[in-house]
C-alpha cells in the first residue's frame, strides 16, 4: 500500500462570490447517477423508483423530487435520466444499484459536471445575458429543467427555488463557464 492518500478537489475549488443582488456558489455535495432505461424496461424501473425513492419518472422539462437524500430526477434525453442526491463519497452508483438493482444501466456522472447555483433577486438579470431560453417564472416555473447552450457550452438549467437556479455544465470547461457567469454578473451591477 502507498503511504499517501489522494484527496479529490471540486472543479471550482469551492468557489463562492457575492455580487450586487446575485450570488454565485459552487455546489459540491451532490452526486449524479445517469439512468439509461433498457428496451421495454420503463415500467419495471418506474415501479422500483416508486417503491425505493417514492418518486415518479418525470416528463421532459419537469423535475421529480423526493425527500430521501433530497433526490431529484429529471429527463436528459429520450430513455435517459439523471438522478441527483446528497452524497459526497466515491461510489454513487452502488448506492443507487442497492435500490434499483439491474432494472437500469447506471453510470456515475458526479465528477463529470460542475454545479453552480445562481441565487438572488438579480439572478434572472444575470442569466438573460447568457441563457437563450425564456426563464420567466410564467413559462419556466420552479421545478422546471432544460438543457441548452450558454456561451457555446452545453448547460442544464434547473429552476429549484424562487430567484434560484442551478446550472450544470461539463467539468472540463468549468473555469470558462464560470468566467461567462462572472462576466455576466459584473455586467448586471450598477455603474458608479
Amino acid at each position, binding site marked *: 500500500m502507498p503511504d499517501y492518500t489522494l484527496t479529490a478537489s471540486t472543479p471550482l475549488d469551492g468557489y463562492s462570490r457575492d455580487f450586487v443582488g446575485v450570488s454565485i456558489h459552487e455546489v459540491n455535495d451532490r452526486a449524479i447517477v445517469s439512468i439509461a432505461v433498457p428496451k421495454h424496461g420503463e415500467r419495471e424501473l418506474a415501479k422500483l423508483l416508486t417503491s425505493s425513492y417514492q418518486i415518479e419518472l418525470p416528463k*421532459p422539462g419537469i423535475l421529480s423530487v423526493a425527500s430521501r437524500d433530497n433526490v431529484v430526477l429529471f429527463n436528459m*434525453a429520450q430513455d435517459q435520466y439523471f438522478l441527483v442526491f446528497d452524497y459526497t463519497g466515491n461510489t454513487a452508483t452502488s448506492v443507487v444499484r442497492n435500490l434499483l438493482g439491474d432494472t437500469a444501466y447506471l453510470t456515475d456522472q458526479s465528477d463529470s459536471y460542475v454545479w453552480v447555483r445562481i441565487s438572488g433577486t438579480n439572478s434572472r438579470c444575470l442569466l438573460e445575458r447568457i441563457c437563450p*431560453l425564456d426563464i420567466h417564472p410564467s413559462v419556466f416555473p420552479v421545478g422546471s429543467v432544460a438543457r*441548452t*447552450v450558454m456561451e457555446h457550452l452545453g448547460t442544464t438549467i434547473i429552476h429549484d427555488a424562487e430567484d434560484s437556479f442551478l446550472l450544470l455544465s461539463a467539468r472540463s470547461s468549468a473555469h470558462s463557464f464560470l468566467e461567462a457567469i462572472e462576466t455576466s454578473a459584473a455586467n448586471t451591477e450598477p455603474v458608479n
Partner: protein
Amino acid sequence: MIIHHPLLGPRDASEFVYKGDASLINRPDWQADNAPELFHDYLYLRDNPAGEHQELWYHEQGDRSWLVVTRNTLTHDITNVELARDVAFAKQANKSGRVEKSGRGKK
C-alpha cells in the same frame, strides 16, 4: 429560426445541427440483388426542391433527439416537426401492414 420541438417546445436553431435530407431514413436493403445501385442512389441522388422539404435535424445541445423537420426552402417556414423515431416506427408499421399509432408531431 425557431424549431418547435415535439417534446421540449420552441428552441433556437443554434441548439440543433442540420443532418441532411430526411430520405436518409430510408436505408436500402443491403441484401437486395441491386444493392450497389440502390446505395448509389441513396448516397448521391437528392431532390433539390424550391418549396417544402423534409430534413433531419439533431438536437445536439438539447435532448440529443433526431427530428424530421418540414421546412419551406423559399420562406424558411417550418410547418411540421416530428421525432425521427416516430417517423421511422410509422414507416416500419406501414410496411408490415400494422396501423400507425404515433402522432406526436406538432405544427
